[in-house]
């Protein structure tokens, strides 16, 4: 529509700048600046050559790539059957199965790591197998969600048509179903590859010293070896690889896009055979998904050779023996984590909310703002943490000792998710809603507030929950920004697991159990309004 036509109902000119100011300032200071500092460090040719020539880098790169490829392939393979059954069938308990399969994706990486330390026999610890198994557990949800969503709307008549043309079930799968699902499969593969390529917590806890990925190597160099230049070079290298992967997967997906028409096609299992297949596959899936967490809970009550409450009872007491302290206070870390989560939630909701409003109110220029705010999403948490560490360490911005640096790092990770969940809600509001408010006597600004800002109440509650869950589990950025005496739960769990002895290990499992319960509660509470909204729509 021509510019002048909505002249009388436009928002005041200052609305978008006013809304975008805080998010943009935050992005500039806490994201762009640290990233710029990181890049500046790398632009010294000598340090680049030193790092790239260093022995062992080839091994790190090779392991990073191959474990990501194998993890991705296995996740697709193993997620395929549950995705199909959950998309096609309705049955009692379906929502529970869906929750058991998808909740792990939202769990803190440290909890997943601890759960597999608890589950796997000792000889499997510090092995590539452990890393890959945990990655599959983590990411099956991606396949179930993305591939399942597409499968659910794939018309059953298409497969029926193929059968009447003489195709066997295997041929239908190969020639009809797989090609049609290709966009979803590619999307899932892209997401899982990115997650496993940049995986930090799982690899750090399960890979041991011999199996390190780029992400773990960056952290090791920066925090253990004091080789910040080397870490910076590696994180820029990783940034380049990530950019390339994102670009490729976006291109592939565009090419492969197919549109379907048709509603959901779920139905009850009819034959005995269908029911048995459903029960066996989903039963095995649920067992596989629940086993690590159950093992972790069990072993928190089983330090050493017998059942006992020792680990739980000593959780609030950092002394292992009189006078000998662990250096970590597990229970105090709970309070630290809760406080971080509260601060992160507040920051993410305010900044993410105003950003989402600015993006949708700006219309044409909104895309630019949208892209800018999504950048942290394409940057690994470790890179964010490293950037902040080397930027805010000298006057006048020596903020390393400030308690709020950690929650700020968490917020950088969480805000893109908040924005992503709110923008579609705002975009789905029909423009005539605001016109209706204006016709009832609301000024354009008031109409915008009444119709769009107030509608965010519900989705903001959900977004707040996810921000809290992200903060509770954040490990990558925290590794760089944490200070002794202020350990968050993931840091405390990592440190406890690194100790020898049965009690610290059982304490780690107990603390991980607490963190699991806390995160699961937040996710379930946050997910509810969204679910009811979707039903209403």
């Amino acid at each position, binding site marked *: 529509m021509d510019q002048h036509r909505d002249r009388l109902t436009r928002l005041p000119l200052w609305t978008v700048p006013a809304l975008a100011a805080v998010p943009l300032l935050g992005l500039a200071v806490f994201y762009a600046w640290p990233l710029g500092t990181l890049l500046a460090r790398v632009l010294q040719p000598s340090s680049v050559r030193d790092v790239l020539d260093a022995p062992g880098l080839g091994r790190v790169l090779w392991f990073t790539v191959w474990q990501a490829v194998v993890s991705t392939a296995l996740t697709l393979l193993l997620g395929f059957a549950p995705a199909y059954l959950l998309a096609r069938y309705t049955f009692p308990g379906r929502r529970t199965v869906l929750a058991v399969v998808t909740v792990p994706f939202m769990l803190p990486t440290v909890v997943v790591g601890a759960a597999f330390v608890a589950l796997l026999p000792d000889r499997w610890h510090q092995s590539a197998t452990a890393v890959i198994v945990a990655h599959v557990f983590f990411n099956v949800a991606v396949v179930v969600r993305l591939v399942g969503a597409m499968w659910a709307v794939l018309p059953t008549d298409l497969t029926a048509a193929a059968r009447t043309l003489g195709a066997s079930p295997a041929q239908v799968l190969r020639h009809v179903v797989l090609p049609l699902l290709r966009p979803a499969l590619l999307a899932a593969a892209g997401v899982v590859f990115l997650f496993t390529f940049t995986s930090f917590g799982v690899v750090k806890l399960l890979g041991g010293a011999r199996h390190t990925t780029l992400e773990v190597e960056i952290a090791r160099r920066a925090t253990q070896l004091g080789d910040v230049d080397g870490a910076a070079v590696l994180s820029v290298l990783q940034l380049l690889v990530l950019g390339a992967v994102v670009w490729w997967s976006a291109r592939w997906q565009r090419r492969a896009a197919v549109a379907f028409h048709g509603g959901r096609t779920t139905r009850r299992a009819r034959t005995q055979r269908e029911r048995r297949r459903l029960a066996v596959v989903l039963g095995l899936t649920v067992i596989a998904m629940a086993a690590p967490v159950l093992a972790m809970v069990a072993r928190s009550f089983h330090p050493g050779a017998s059942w006992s409450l020792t680990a739980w009872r000593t959780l609030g007491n950092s002394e292992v023996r009189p006078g000998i302290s662990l250096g970590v206070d597990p229970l105090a870390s709970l309070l630290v984590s809760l406080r971080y989560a509260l601060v992160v939630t507040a920051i993410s909701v305010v900044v993410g909310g105003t950003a989402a409003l600015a993006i949708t109110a700006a219309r044409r220029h909104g895309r630019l703002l949208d892209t800018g705010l999504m950048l942290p999403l394409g940057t690994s948490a470790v890179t964010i943490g490293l950037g902040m560490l080397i930027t805010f360490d000298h006057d006048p911005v020596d903020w390393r000792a400030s308690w709020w640096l950690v929650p700020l790092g968490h917020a950088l990770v969480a805000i893109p998710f908040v924005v992503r969940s709110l923008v579609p809600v705002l975009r789905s509001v029909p423009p005539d809603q605001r016109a209706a408010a204006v016709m009832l*006597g609301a000024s354009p600004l008031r109409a915008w507030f009444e119709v769009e800002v107030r509608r965010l109440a519900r989705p903001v509650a959900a977004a707040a929950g996810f921000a809290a869950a992200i903060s509770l589990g954040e490990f990558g950025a925290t590794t760089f920004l944490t200070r002794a005496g202020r350990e968050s739960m993931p840091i405390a769990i990592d440190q406890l697991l690194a100790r020898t002895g049965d009690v610290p290990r059982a304490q780690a499992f107990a603390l991980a159990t607490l963190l699991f319960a806390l995160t699961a509660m937040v996710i379930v509470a946050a997910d509810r309004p969204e679910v009811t909204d979707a039903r209403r729509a």
Partner: protein
Amino acid sequence: MLDVRDVRVRFGDRDVLRDVSLRVDDHEVVALLGPSGIGKSTLLRVVAGLLVPDAGSVWLDGTDLTDVPPHRRRIGLMFQDEQLFPHLDVAANIGFGPRMAGADRASITRRVETLLALVGLEGFGGRRVTTLSGGEAKRVALARALAPEPAVLLLDEPLTGLDRELHDRLAVDLATVLRDTGTAALLVTHDHDEAAVIAHRTEVFTGGTV
């Protein structure tokens, strides 16, 4: 009295409205009759102030409204698809206009009760608008549009999408409400019978002069 003078709207190189003029007297209900896609809704949007015309002016009781934003025009609009606010209940939807006008809570409540009674929806105040039937939603939309006591009410195909029987009953009810409240109204429709039941005067709309 609403007075529309020589309104012209061009979209691209097409004249959607070519020098349209029309008048609606106080307490008068005028129907604009014409097939869909001929610019009837566009004309209503111009009168409402949601759309600024390329030429021409809109006058209300001797005042030029051309540069007055819609929320100060004292003109109401009932949308074809109601546009009820899904995050508010029925009472809050109807009370929206008075609330914007700064009315106090007690008088808003009274006004909502009166309007609910007027459209035959007593006791519906606490209902979520997403649970309303098609006919109920239309009634709420009408009550909401009347709540700020507009000088002129614009009705954009207000009864489309209802089955015949409900449509006819609501047409009679709508006519009664408009007459009882003495509201001047401009109705656009493609339905002869609807125009005949609701309006005092029917004009055939061709996109040009009425």
